[in-house]
């Protein structure tokens, strides 16, 4: 394990990769069917978030704003703009849930969103997500916790074959689907919260863009606590899992820091076998494990001579670093958007919280970057290979169809990364 620095040394951020908590909250609410995420703040926060997510997912994105102005910012308690917003929108559509979350402005004001929630006639979940704290991942995690605390009904019985899956924010829609399917292969019934795999997965359909479409149903959330098992993926989802366990003492909890690479996937399979009493996993699982092993061998030569920088949300960085390390890639820099307990466990020469200016200063230490579109300029300037992952990736289509998880996704990811490294080497020789 190398050096870990948790603190940002500079007074400012230059070319930031950190993203905001309100954005994470909005994204979590988009994984619920018929939900209306309502951001309590100035119009810009919502508008930026909407454009950001629309360009990333190439999908219409439903987010509403309370449009706080100088008058409301200074004078009132904030209730009126929330109630007015709900009123204005519900004239046209009927949400199954209103997902109210704050921003820096309304947190600075100290608005009583709990009080406002009481004045609204629709089912509502409220959550505090100041954007001067945490980041995308914590905004998502806090929101899932709030949804569980405020919606899920207590139970004492369990259905033995039912599993609740709590995915972290960096899992793409297809990855959530693949993980659900994987668990289902063991004969289990899975409910994911949130479930972007059915809302932002890029399927062509009629869109009612004032509300989210697809995603987990509110009724399914309400009755979630009768599952025998909850599987949380990512350190950021620990608190959500704990909140769910409080709803039913008979539930058992499986936590995975990530499900990337051979070792982590093996661990998950072991748990699922124990859970179901099966002796052998389904044939397709066995087959994909062999394929991953083969790819690890095929790619190890290239990856073994490649020094990699991985950037992004902590839970993503942890998983990607592990997968790459297993095939011999040397992770010289793991650059996280924000601090997280995950950082302690990352296998890299340098683990730090920072921005792309920090990454630029370290450019002599890596050959390949795994990161978002913002890393493109950096990769270009210094002739590094680039594998686009994380938020935002605007210049490419199909983000929601990229799968890096489990045996199957791991195999594809290693191929892609090794090919990118080779292409870079070819490029630098002519």
């Amino acid at each position, binding site marked *: 394990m190398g050096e870990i620095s948790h603190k940002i040394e500079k007074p*400012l951020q230059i070319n*930031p990769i*950190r993203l905001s908590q309100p954005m994470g909250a909005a994204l979590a609410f988009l994984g619920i069917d018929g939900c209306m995420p309502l951001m309590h703040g100035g119009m810009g926060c919502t508008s930026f978030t909407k454009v950001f997510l629309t360009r990333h997912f190439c999908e219409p994105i439903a987010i509403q704003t309370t449009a706080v102005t100088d008058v409301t910012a200074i004078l009132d308690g904030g209730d009126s703009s929330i109630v007015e917003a709900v009123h204005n929108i519900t004239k046209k559509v009927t949400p199954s849930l209103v997902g109210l979350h704050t*921003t820096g402005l309304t947190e600075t004001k100290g608005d009583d969103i709990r009080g406002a929630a009481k004045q609204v006639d629709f089912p509502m979940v409220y959550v505090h997500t100041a954007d001067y704290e945490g980041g995308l991942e914590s905004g998502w995690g806090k929101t899932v916790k709030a949804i569980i605390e405020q919606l899920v009904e207590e139970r004492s019985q369990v259905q033995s074959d039912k599993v609740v899956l709590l995915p972290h924010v960096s899992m793409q829609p297809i990855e959530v689907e693949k993980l659900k399917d994987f668990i289902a292969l063991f004969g289990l019934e899975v409910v994911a919260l949130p479930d972007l795999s059915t809302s932002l997965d890029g399927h062509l359909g009629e869109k009612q863009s004032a509300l989210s479409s697809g995603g987990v149903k509110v009724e399914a959330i309400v009755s979630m606590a009768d599952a025998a098992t909850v599987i949380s993926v990512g350190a950021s989802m620990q608190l959500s899992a704990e909140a769910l366990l409080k709803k039913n003492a008979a539930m058992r909890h499986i936590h995975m820091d990530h499900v990337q690479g051979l070792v982590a996937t093996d661990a998950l399979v072991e748990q699922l076998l124990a859970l179901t009493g099966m002796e052998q996993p389904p044939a397709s699982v066995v087959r994909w494990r062999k394929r991953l092993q083969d790819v690890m061998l095929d790619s190890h030569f290239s990856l073994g001579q490649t020094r990699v920088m991985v950037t992004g949300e902590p839970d993503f960085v942890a998983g990607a670093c592990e997968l790459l390390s297993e095939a011999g890639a040397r992770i010289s820099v793991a650059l996280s958007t924000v601090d997280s307990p995950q950082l302690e466990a990352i296998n890299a020469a340098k683990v730090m919280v920072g921005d792309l200016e920090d990454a630029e200063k370290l450019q002599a230490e890596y050959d390949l970057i795994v990161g978002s579109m913002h890393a493109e300029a950096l990769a270009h300037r210094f002739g590094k290979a680039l594998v686009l992952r994380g938020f935002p990736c605007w210049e490419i289509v199909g983000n929601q169809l990229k799968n890096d998880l489990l045996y199957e996704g791991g195999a594809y990811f290693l191929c892609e990364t090794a090919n990118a490294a080779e292409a870079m080497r070819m490029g630098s020789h002519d």
Partner: protein
Amino acid sequence: MATKPKIRELLDESACAHNKTKTAGCNKTVPGATTGGCAFEGSQISLFPYADAAHLVHGPITCVGASWETRLTRTSWQGRDMTQMGFTTGISTNDVVFGGEEKLRQSIDYIVGHYAPQAVFVYSTCVTAMIGDDIDAVCRQAQQDHGIPMVPVHAPGFVGGKNLGSRLAGEAVLTHLIGTLEPEETTPFDINLIGDYNVTGDMWQYAPLLKELGIRILSTLSGDGRVARIRTAHRAHLNVLVCAKSLISLPRKLKEKYGIPFISVSFYGKRDTSASILAIAEGLGDADLIARTKQLIAREEARLEERLAPYREIFRGKKAVLNTGGNKSWSIASALQDLGIEVVATSVKKSTQVDKEKARKYLGEKGVLMTNPGAEQAKIIDQTGADLLLAGGRSLYTAIKKKIAFADVNQEKKKSYGGYEGLLNLAEDLKNALENPVFKNVARRAPWEK
């Protein structure tokens, strides 16, 4: 001296048409409205294209974390292109409690030390305006310490929408930059371009023509702009406002303060491009220049016609429905007509009075001005037998349902549609849309559907 502009005064823009009528001002934000940015975003759009300056956003991460590197504003600046960088104080809980001025001061020092910008623009945002950080004082001190302009921009998001933010940006430039430097030389044909941000290189489509005529762009706000040049803007003979009603306060004030006349132009489509170039020449009032301009326009139009000929065949008899906002509701309509496409309807949902008048002028009596395009456009496509829908991505489904071609005009632009050259880009894109089989294929039913 406080430099915070008076918001009320800016909202009452006397050069805005709606102030002559009784309609509402520019600053109406509606809780529960789905779209529209904030004042900070407006100021960012207006000033970030100065690529030789650092743009430091004093606020939490949302403001710039979600918005840097979003716009393809192109620059010829040879140094590091700071318009494609994000600088933020990224304030934390601690700053909210104890104030962020010290952090701001240190951030400016860091930027000047590491990036040697020509100026630093400092943007206040909702949170830092709310906690009362005095960015004026910090900027004044930093300007003394570093000897380069420091420009405080007071456009926190909660004061209003994008248009107001643009005005506030103009105000900041007027107060802190314009008139602070004398140009090395002046020519009788010096102009300022205001409101073209050179997105996808729009400005470069017509700037060479102006140059050929001997018209010099003394400064811009802010496409391909330079801080040193905007400081000399008070010496221009004409201000040319490009398609940007939001910045209209600035040329009006420059007229009051320095006696510089101004005109409003648009460079979308053949007719508008020609009319605009001529208007600039006429605005400069030189008979010889006007004569030469007419010759140049004739030459360029003939050249364009020749290159458009193959497209005209394809577009003959084609009808389009246009659903977009602001000045695009008429400027793109005009460009489409120049290509020989009939525009049967355009949206005026979010348009100002002036935009509506212009839309009516271009579309004629028969054209439909849609006030609720979401509901109206499908019906109009049926009634008119339109072949093409130009709209934002959300309307794609309407086009698929109606099995007609679709072009996204709201997506962040990748190609320039400005000037004569841009019209060819537009023609090519529309040709591709009309010929693309994807719309029919996607509408195809699965074998198991009846």
